[in-house]
């Protein structure tokens, strides 16, 4: 009975006392090896399939990657010019310059076994500079944010988790909304979109940067359905995340903390070019 009481106390403390976070991260050191261990079979399977792949497949893949790289490089050439132009225009308008976000590569080492939660575990912790509230991206767009850290791992809540919300705007016209996770990997939902709002199927939703947690301008989702029901106060807008949430193994942690982002943006208007 003492144990039950102890457990109850611990639950209460963990829920209501922020300093339990530190205790938790120290305790987690003990189970971190187990988390690594659980990842080993998948890793070995990956390595094996790398070993066993035949030459022609590799050559084909290599060729495909090369052509992809060429296409991307062409796009980057323009990006440099566009960035410079953007900075010039913003300076003309005496606006604040946007900072290039620095990122850190992280690898997925685990998925939360609880099917109600969309959480993954990354192999970067406080030792590497991860922090709670950090935005997480993958090749396709925003995947989520860090909600807990230990010394060597961090837990990420994906944008499709039923408890997650992310401020977005429509790339086409700047209409702002909040996208909520629904607990399925395929879909997120825009909340409180008036019937008169200009939302169309196929619109790209990007982070609006409001709220200060996610950096501005990263793709989040593509609108897949707009349902305007006259009987309901708001229209139902569903979207499909652009990040490959249940597939990508390599993720990016945005290094610039939200506070610094604002700060740099605030002081940069007079400073010279980097």
């Amino acid at each position: 009975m003492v144990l039950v009481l102890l457990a109850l106390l611990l639950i209460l403390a963990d829920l209501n006392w922020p300093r339990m976070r530190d205790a938790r991260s120290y305790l987690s050191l003990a189970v971190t090896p187990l988390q690594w261990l659980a990842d080993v079979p998948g890793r070995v399977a990956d390595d094996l399939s790398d070993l066993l792949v035949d030459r022609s497949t590799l050559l084909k893949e290599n060729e495909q990657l090369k052509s992809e790289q060429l296409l991307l490089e062409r796009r980057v050439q323009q990006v440099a010019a566009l960035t410079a132009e953007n900075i010039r225009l913003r300076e003309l308008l005496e606006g604040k310059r946007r900072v290039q976000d620095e990122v850190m590569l992280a690898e997925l080492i685990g998925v939360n076994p609880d099917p109600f939660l969309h959480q993954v575990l990354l192999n970067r912790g406080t030792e590497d500079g991860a922090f709670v509230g950090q935005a997480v991206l993958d090749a396709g767009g925003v995947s989520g944010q860090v909600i807990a850290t230990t010394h060597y791992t961090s837990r990420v809540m994906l944008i499709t988790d039923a408890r997650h919300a992310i401020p977005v705007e429509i790339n086409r016209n700047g209409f702002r909304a909040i996208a909520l996770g629904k607990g399925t990997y395929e879909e997120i939902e825009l909340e409180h979109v008036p019937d008169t709002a200009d939302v169309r199927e196929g619109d790209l939703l990007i982070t609006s940067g409001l709220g200060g947690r996610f950096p501005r301008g990263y793709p989040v989702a593509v609108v897949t359905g707009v349902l305007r029901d006259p009987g309901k106060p708001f229209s139902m807008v569903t979207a499909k995340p652009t990040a490959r949430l249940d597939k990508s193994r390599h993720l990016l942690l945005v290094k610039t903390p939200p506070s610094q982002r604002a700060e740099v943006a605030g002081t940069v208007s007079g400073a010279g070019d980097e």
Partner: protein
Amino acid sequence: MSEARPGGFLIIFGTFLVGLVLSQLPLPDTFEWGRPEWVPMILIYWVLALPHRVGLGMAWMFGLALDLLKGSPLGLNALSLTLIAFLTLLIHQRLRMFPLWKQALMVMVLVGINQLTFHWMQAIAGNARDSFMFMLPSLVSALLWPWVFVLLRSIRRTFRVT
């Protein structure tokens, strides 16, 4: 108890560690809901076989480890595992006499209680659950029980853990 070897503890500890790792192993989406609850099953076995060595304390400790692994509020699994360890202790003498399939039924009930406590407390903690699919693991665990039982028993006999 008198002939308990020092190695016996390591064996018990080891099986629990394996259970913890298994509970973290990634599964394909289709099986995600039916993930067997390894740690409760292993706990039930040891409490059943060696009630004088594995009890509430051990249940609590490994529950805490499970919480750390799952990222659930600390103490949640500790609570539910202590609870089923207690229930198993209460009925372990009867449970030992049961044939395997009857034991499996009891395991289903016990793991079910574990699941209910865990998810109920999670809901109180603010992680809302919107389907009863979380009871599926208790069925899967029951189906796996005969194999787990036989495997753990042979481990116990090979290493003469008493």
